[in-house]
């Protein structure tokens, strides 16, 4: 494949073969940072520059108030995730990074669903909620709001089931994760 400096025309197939497009493999990355202004921007900027698309992002405190945990899920890109995690390590306010192995990780997300549920539908929706251990946290004449926690897949499944009833709106937190067993995340 020619360099940009030459006049050779590049076909889309060539670009694809050279690995210039996304790969799609999912990653969960957990990052401990000093709780300082701008840290999140620096981190997301590093991912963006290397063509990673961030699917979900959750930020919250840890047991130490000066330290926050950022949990990101992303799709793969042209570059391997190693290069980004190494670059993340170089950020002065980043303390620790784990590219979590899905099988050794507990990942959970919380979601709120506002579902149309009048008349006969209501009982059916409530039944689905029960199966998914979803809590009903608000009820109005025509709708109810269900709170679900679980893995991304579980929430996706819940969404598929309630959508036919009329999904008014939905809010998801994005996954947070922690390593299984004794090892620290």
């Amino acid at each position: 494949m020619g360099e940009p400096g030459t006049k050779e025309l590049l076909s889309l197939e060539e670009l694809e073969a050279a690995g210039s497009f996304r790969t799609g493999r999912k990653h969960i990355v957990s990052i401990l940072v000093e709780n300082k202004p701008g840290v999140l921007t620096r981190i997301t900027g590093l991912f963006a520059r290397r063509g990673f698309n961030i699917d979900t992002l959750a930020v919250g405190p840890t047991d130490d108030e000066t330290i926050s945990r950022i949990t990101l899920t992303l799709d793969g890109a042209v570059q391997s995730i190693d290069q980004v995690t190494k670059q993340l390590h170089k950020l002065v306010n980043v303390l620790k990074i784990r590219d979590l192995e899905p099988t050794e990780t507990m990942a959970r997300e919380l979601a709120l669903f506002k579902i149309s549920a009048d008349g006969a539908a209501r009982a059916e929706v409530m039944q689905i909620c029960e199966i998914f251990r979803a809590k009903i946290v608000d009820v109005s004449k025509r709708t109810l709001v269900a709170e679900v926690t679980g893995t991304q897949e579980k929430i996706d499944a819940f969404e598929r089931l309630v959508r036919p009833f009329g999904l008014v709106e939905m809010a998801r937190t994005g996954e947070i994760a922690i390593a299984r067993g004794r090892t620290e995340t």
Partner: protein
Amino acid sequence: MRAVDALMECLKAEGVEVVFGLPGGANLPTYDAFYDAGIRHILVRHEAGGGHAAEGYAKATGKVGVAMGTSGPGATNLVTPICDAMMDSVPVVFLTGQVRTELLGTDGFQEADTIGITMPIVKHSVLIQHPLELPRAVHEAFHIARTGRPGPVVVDIPTDLSRADIPYEPITDVHLPGYQPTTDGNQKQIRLAAKALANARRPVIYAGGGSIGASGELTELATSDRLPVTCTVMGLGAFPASHPQWLGMLGMHGTRTANYAMDEADLIVAIGARFDDRVTAKLSEFAPHAKFVHIDVDPAEISKNVPAHIPIVGYAKNILPKLTAEYRALEPDPGRLEEWWHRINSWQERYPLSYDDSPDAEIKPQYMIQALYQATEGDAIVCSDVGQHQMWAAQHYHFDKPRRWINSGGLGTMGFGLPAAMGAKVGCPDDTVVCVTGDGSIQMNAQELATCAQNGIDVKVFIMNNGYLGMVRQWQELFWDRRYSQVDTGQFPDFVKLAEAYGATGMRLTDKHTLVDQMKEALETPGTVVADVRVAPEENVFPMIAPGQAARDMVG
């Protein structure tokens, strides 16, 4: 005291000798503090000039450079030097003024989101949010700029905070839990590397900009046996070019010998180098027979472009003596390199750097550099701009010592040369400092001639005037069917008159027979001198690895 007076104390405590900058509304308080702080400040004519001057100072001295600008346009003018310092790992602290805190985010007059704009091109940056933070932030900035892989750090100071009255206590310790560079290298890895080296039959040492500070240690390792050495354009001078084990520069315009040696090597020891695409050429065909030892202080460089078999993270300066000791202890058989040297020597004989000299008085650009080498007796600090002249200077001025070749390698910033020379001269007043530039590049920061003239900064500028944006013209000639599109600079301006207008001495050199003598005259003329050297207009830089090609397919 005022926060800005504390800032002055911090700069002094950091050993800052000089600051390059230009004032404006948002850093008026800082400039008021400069008025009698006893720190040398050089008023540049454009903040980019100040930024590159700080880089030149840092590259020439090994110390941290400091550049300043006001908010908004002052800070945006610093963006290019910041990026340049990032790419070439130059330790520079940039102090920018910012609008007062209540105006932040309101599009206040001369407000720019300096931290946001520079975020991807800094090693670190900080917006001061409380005046008490300032002293610590400044010391942290110097610490971060200087240590690990050096780089630019931006400290953005809102003008109201800089006027605050604060108690000042000197700070002696810096504690950054998230910033702990590995410096010493893993002993086991070092031993492995020594073993690999002792068993190698076709080894090459490939030294980059990260070995500039470990020149003695590098030479010690190479000469503990007959290990061949090549350097990148950033590493020139780390190993003496007059040494018989020197292969010449490698990469796109490197010597055939260096590139062929990489191509056939069985072991490459990369030291403070980052396998840039101008070095590897076609990556899939780069050094196909080699295993790699990669020594670098930045773990993110290891296996970034080329997988390292034996990575060693730390300072070259700390690692190389241990590697040399381990290597010596193995008592490697020097005879095993016999055949390799035979091959290398045959390339050296067959492919010396050469060019066709002119039949008349015309100055060939290559000869211009050779003449400069003669006139300066090979002992100047050479600051280059970007283009053909840069490559010819890298090829034909043979650097025997580190910190004598100062150029913009990673970003390739036209306009770097003159201000960098200015900074280098300020840092090394006893050295001869020359700027090799092009008719295109010089114009991008020519205003600093005024700074040089006003402050008696004695730089000698040699413009390789080919009347073209020559490097672009070369590519258009070779790869775009000679369709010269927007590369003809004509003979504008008249550089002799320009020099005189700036208060410098202007000269025009056109005859190769008198060139060396006229260059000597230029060097001996006191003050800032600009020599407009008219060279053959359509000469090309060779040899060359054409784009998309492998090292072994070098042409010219």
